[in-house]
């Protein structure tokens, strides 16, 4: 028997825009277009004289694989030279295509553009227009962690956040990344068996800056691409020594681990990741993204950890999707 809510839901479902309403929306949009065109013309630097047609989509994907000690969440492969998906009737793309984006501006834009996948796939944050909860794979798992007394008698922590640095964009030949701040936070790339240097040694990069070249992209695109991460090395406050000693005494390091990872995340608050894409025609475009740990970072980290171990206990082969641990705000 239908409930009163079923009746209401059916009645509500029959509510539709009237033809007059639809026409009014379309008129409003048509009215807005000239304003936007004028605004774009005013703000547009003469960055490139040629206007081109996008014939293919290059989706640059960078691996972020689980490295193992604590959390293993999202592992990503590499894509290259995906064709644009055909939009479906409802204005969106075929979600089956890997790396595809249905963004209409990308399909029709007359100039180069790109966006971080983790930003594009993020969940908008209420009342913060340009901020999202980072999409899956962006610093929502910790590839490795260690902490304890250092040689100088102080404490030292080392957090490694797996990070999805892929970008959606066309005809990109190089991506340059930079993170501001001191040396405590650096990008890291570790090669894989399938991606080594010509002499057979593993490719490895660390630094405030990271460059993914055309050459790397083409080689990486055919194999598992190694691990990208954001590494942090820092000295925690003195009170962490008590946590460390307690973890030693009890054999349970969870509290010490979660607290020190959360402390490191707070050190990253407000950090700006600058991404510059270089395009086939020689032009470049830069975006800046500010990252912030979520308000309940430690709780979310613990939930992710628990979910990871639950998935192991359950023997599931499903990909584990973690709760976002960071927000991303696009500044420019």
């Amino acid at each position, binding site marked *: 028997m239908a409930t*009163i809510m079923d009746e209401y*839901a059916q009645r*509500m479902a029959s*509510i539709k825009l009237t033809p007059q309403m639809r026409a009014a*929306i379309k008129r409003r949009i048509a009215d807005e*277009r000239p304003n936007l065109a004028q605004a774009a013309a005013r703000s547009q630097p003469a960055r490139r004289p040629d206007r081109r047609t996008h014939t293919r989509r290059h989706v640059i994907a960078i691996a972020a694989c689980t490295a193992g000690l604590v959390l293993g969440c999202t592992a990503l492969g590499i894509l290259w030279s995906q064709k644009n998906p055909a939009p479906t009737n*409802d204005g969106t793309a075929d*979600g089956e295509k890997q790396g595809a984006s249905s963004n209409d501006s990308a399909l029709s834009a007359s100039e180069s553009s790109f966006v971080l996948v983790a930003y594009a796939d993020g969940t908008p*944050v209420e009342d913060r227009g340009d901020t999202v909860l980072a999409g*899956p794979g962006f610093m929502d798992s910790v590839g490795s962690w260690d902490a304890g007394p250092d040689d100088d008698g102080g404490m030292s922590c080392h957090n490694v956040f797996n990070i999805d640095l892929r970008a959606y964009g066309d005809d990109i030949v190089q991506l340059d990344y930079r993170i501001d701040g001191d040396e405590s936070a650096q990008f890291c790339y570790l090669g894989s068996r399938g991606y080594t240097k010509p002499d057979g040694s593993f490719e490895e990069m660390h630094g405030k800056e990271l460059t993914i070249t055309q050459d790397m992209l083409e080689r990486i695109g055919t194999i598992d691409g190694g691990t990208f991460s954001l590494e942090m090395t820092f000295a925690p406050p003195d009170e962490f020594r008590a946590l460390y000693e307690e973890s030693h005494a009890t054999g349970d390091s969870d509290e010490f681990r979660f607290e020190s990872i959360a402390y490191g995340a707070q050190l990253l608050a407000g950090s700006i990741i600058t991404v510059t894409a270089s395009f086939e025609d020689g032009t470049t475009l830069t975006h800046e993204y500010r990252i912030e740990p979520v308000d309940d970072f430690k709780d979310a980290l613990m939930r992710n950890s628990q979910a990871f171990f639950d998935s192991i206990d359950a023997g599931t082969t499903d990909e584990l999707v973690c709760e976002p641990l960071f927000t991303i705000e696009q500044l420019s």
Partner: protein
Amino acid sequence: MTNRTPRTEEFMDRAIDAHGDAVFRLALNQLRNATDAQDAVQETFVRLLTSETRFENKTHLRAWLLRVAINICHDMHKSAWNRRVDRLEDDQHADARDSRRSASAEEIALRTLKDHPVWNALADLPEDQRLVIHLAYIEDRSSDEIAQLLGIKPATVRTRLFRARTRLREILGETGNAIALARPPCAPSVSRGNAASHGPPTH
């Protein structure tokens, strides 16, 4: 985030056709007024026109539109006191005008909605509770999906749903309606990570 190149007319038309009704229903639920709801829908799609967001699929687009519409309705709600009297008057005039001419199916549906006891009971719920009821029962969203959409914890969603249903039972009971609100309100959860695949996992 503003897009320097507005989306094409074709894209906008498809988006309006596919999601315009859902956005309108949500706005109507939040604002309780067809005229305001129409304004909110227009503003939502104007923002889509200028947004640079990349949409992975129709689910992503719909979630984005609903999220934007929620914010717009919230902003309009905050300033509603300034217009409330005018709007009520507008609606009364509109109803009188509509009664004198042949109404479309959409207009008839709107009128019959306003006769439903749940519609009237929802008017007494706070904005946030009315919203979760709409997303759960009308949009068939799970608690997890609503949490993602609103940027709040699933536990908070469940709390709001519990309180909203309790309050609805009270209101509908007072008005002599048989209460059966227990329809499972939430579809199975689909995690965000399932929405789009970006390549084979590497280990």
